[in-house]
């Protein structure tokens, strides 16, 4: 009898033990193009926002389909004065992870930090026209702009609000690489920083006072993998529950332990031309190149249908007008155009790319063959990002194969196509200089009327489609794999892992 009750007690203790065990989700959240492993400064980060937003918060955020912007730390906002005045009303009762109250002063502090050149923040390019920040009370922030900026809210979805009380003692210059980001960052997000084991993983713990409710899991772990293949094996073996996947990776999964998630990459792949070089100045050559590429076949054969042919750099279909030239595959016409433009078929043009994955290699070899078929020789050259940046920052190149993330707001394309941003002043690496295009981008930013804005970007799309400063090819899907042991898990590909409401506080394990 005694023995039996002892046994029962042991059993009860065991079940109690397992019931109170931590619920943990481990993933490779920084794997792939949207991630930035080991980078924790949201002011200078250009990727990795999917992880940063687990412990920091933004004023506003997108829904997972990127259709609508709603409030996060801001409960509401109004735009006045023809788009030059933004008033944000902040959510009540939000606390920083260290217990301090979140106020409008924190928002002001964060924006000032972004605009301080010493902080090295890329947000300065987006917030530069904010001339005045007022905080009439702890719950209100009023931004005055030098000129209207309809894309401000879009930029805000990636802008993490930082705690003034914790950072005001650090000089902006020192903040760039400060240990604070890696040791004790304080945010307002659903999870709190716990620890970083350098080069291995970061661990967050649930924030019991999160303003949308306490998260369902106790810990969230982000593991680092230098090799994509290693992350895939870890996902397959159950060591982790989530990872970004390449198209090739997705084909290696079978069974029902892992669910494949997909969505538009919001990246347009294009053949870019050095618009300052006289070699391809004749638009007929650029038209011929596009006509010579059988994009439908590439999308079908190489991408397995996981891409969509695109005819302008805008990936958000709302801004793509009907009736633009589809440049349907036509080798004869391509040959004629090249001949009319006097193209020397003996000449070979180098195409530089920073892509190094197998799919991109296959794509370039196919492009090479297709273009050779009409008498346009290209020589692909695979380089790494620093080399690509250096070459395209100068003028000694002719063509590139690259991608541009531009969703959901086409304003993202502004610094890549407006002539003000030709290097060294920015990222218009193809040296596009079309006054009418400049004007449309400016219009898209300055107008507050949704219909006028849509029209501006549709016109921009049509203009690029006609003049072809870039030959836009397609926009591919991106993939993630998630263990079916997880519930309520939301992930969708986004530029830089961008900010959408993934409701991480509801993520759970079965």
């Amino acid at each position: 009898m005694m023995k039996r009750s002892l046994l029962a007690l042991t059993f009860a203790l065991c079940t109690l033990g397992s019931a109170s065990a931590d619920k943990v989700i481990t993933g490779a959240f920084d794997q792939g193009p949207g991630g930035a492993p080991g980078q924790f400064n949201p002011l200078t980060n250009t990727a990795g926002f999917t992880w940063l937003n687990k412990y920091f918060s933004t004023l506003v955020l997108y829904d997972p389909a990127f259709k609508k912007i709603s409030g996060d730390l801001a409960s509401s906002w109004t735009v006045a004065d023809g788009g030059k005045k933004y008033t944000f009303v902040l959510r009540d009762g939000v606390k920083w992870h260290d217990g301090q109250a979140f106020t409008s002063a924190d928002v002001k502090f964060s924006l000032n930090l972004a605009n301080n050149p010493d902080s090295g923040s890329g947000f300065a390019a987006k917030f530069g026209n904010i001339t005045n920040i007022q905080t009439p009370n702890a719950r209100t922030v009023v931004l005055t702009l030098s000129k209207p900026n309809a894309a401000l809210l879009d930029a805000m979805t990636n802008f993490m609000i930082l705690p003034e009380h914790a950072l005001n003692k650090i000089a902006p210059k020192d903040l760039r690489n400060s240990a604070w980001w890696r040791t004790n960052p304080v945010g307002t997000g659903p999870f709190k920083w716990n620890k970083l084991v350098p080069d291995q993983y970061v661990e967050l713990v649930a924030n019991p006072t999160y303003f949308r409710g306490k998260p369902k899991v106790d810990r969230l772990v982000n593991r680092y993998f230098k090799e994509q293949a290693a992350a895939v094996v870890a996902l397959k073996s159950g060591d982790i529950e989530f990872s970004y996947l390449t198209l090739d990776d997705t084909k290696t999964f079978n069974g029902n332990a892992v669910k494949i998630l997909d969505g538009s990459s919001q990246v347009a792949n294009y053949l870019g031309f050095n618009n300052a070089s006289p070699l391809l100045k004749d638009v007929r050559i650029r038209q011929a190149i596009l006509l010579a590429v059988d994009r439908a076949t590439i999308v079908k054969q190489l991408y397995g249908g996981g891409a969509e042919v695109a005819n302008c750099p805008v990936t958000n279909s709302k801004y793509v007008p009907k009736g633009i030239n589809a440049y349907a595959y036509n080798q004869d016409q391509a040959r004629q155009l090249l001949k009319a433009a006097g193209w020397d078929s003996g000449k070979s043009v180098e195409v530089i790319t920073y892509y190094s994955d197998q799919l991109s290699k296959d794509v370039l070899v196919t492009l090479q063959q297709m273009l050779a078929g009409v008498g346009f020789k290209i020589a692909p050259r695979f380089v790494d990002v620093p080399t690509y940046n250096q070459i395209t920052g100068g003028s000694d190149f002719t063509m590139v194969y690259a991608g541009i993330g531009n969703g959901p707001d086409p304003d993202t394309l502004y610094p890549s196509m407006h002539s003000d941003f030709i290097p060294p002043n920015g990222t218009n690496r193809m040296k596009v200089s079309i006054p009418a295009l400049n004007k449309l981008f400016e219009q898209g930013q300055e107008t507050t009327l949704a219909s006028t804005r849509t029209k501006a970007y549709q016109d921009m799309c049509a203009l690029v489609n006609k003049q072809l400063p870039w030959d836009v090819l397609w926009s591919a899907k991106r993939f993630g794999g998630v263990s079916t042991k997880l519930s309520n898990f939301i992930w969708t590909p986004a530029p830089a892992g961008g900010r959408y409401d993934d409701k991480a506080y509801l993520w759970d394990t079965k």
Partner: protein
Amino acid sequence: MGLYTLRRLLISIPLLLVISAVVFTLLQFTPGDPLDAYIPPDQVLSAEQRQILKVDLGLDQSKPVQYFKWLGRAAQGDLGYRIKNGQPVIEELGRRLPPTLLLMGLGMTVGVTLGIFFGIVAAVKRYTLLDNTLTFLAFLGISTPAFLAGLLGMYVFALKLGWFPAGGYQTPGDGGALDILRHLILPAMILSVTYIAILMRYTRSSILEVLFQDFVRTASAKGVPSYRVISKHVLRNALIPVVTVIGANVANLIGGAVFLESIFSWPGTGQLYLDAIDSRDYPMIMGTTLMLAIIILLANLITDLMYGLIDPRIRYS
């Protein structure tokens, strides 16, 4: 021997100077500078911001000035700061070295032990099926690159059989000695494969050379048991060239570790080195090169000193 060691250590100093100068010069010929790596292709930074970063990273100075500044600080034990995240290089190396040494240490120990053991077996059982099989496996081992062996090993032992974790240094939240050992075994075994193969071949041929010499025959004729002939007379003489091979292959071991660390997400210096090169992180590349050069020079010195221990005829003068 003490004087010899000291002399060798002193010779290492100019050698390290030359290595650092050569690496720094080569870096200047690599396209793209740290600033190009620091700023992603679509990151918008104003010319003013670029200049601030340039001055901050010391990239505004001339190349010789950059080198001598680095050298001056390195001589005092300061290897500068990592461009990527501003962490002290020496701290990063200090953190990354133990996992690498652990991986290389176990890989080498297993490699040397099994390599020599199989070499003896193959020599003693020469031209039998066992010898031929071992020879075949050795060639397979030598000709399989570390990254291929790594991927295969991971696929079979981690994914299919589930015996080991699929990479990483520790289970998040655990990190005890046993946990680390569990993560260490697979990459270390794979790292040892090339070592086993190379050492087996050398040991085998070296033993065969000694096996037919007069003093061995004499010992056998005098009725010394064969295991004693092998261990006392053959092995001692046969191991001298093998020790050279062990030392000379430390550089290969490091090369293998670089790939395996990436595949197994092992947070060692190899992975750090690749990362540093990717991001044109000059201080990190220089620091890691210097450290690896020191390891290789030390390995060579230890090899030379081992000669004396194995063969008393060798004198250091």
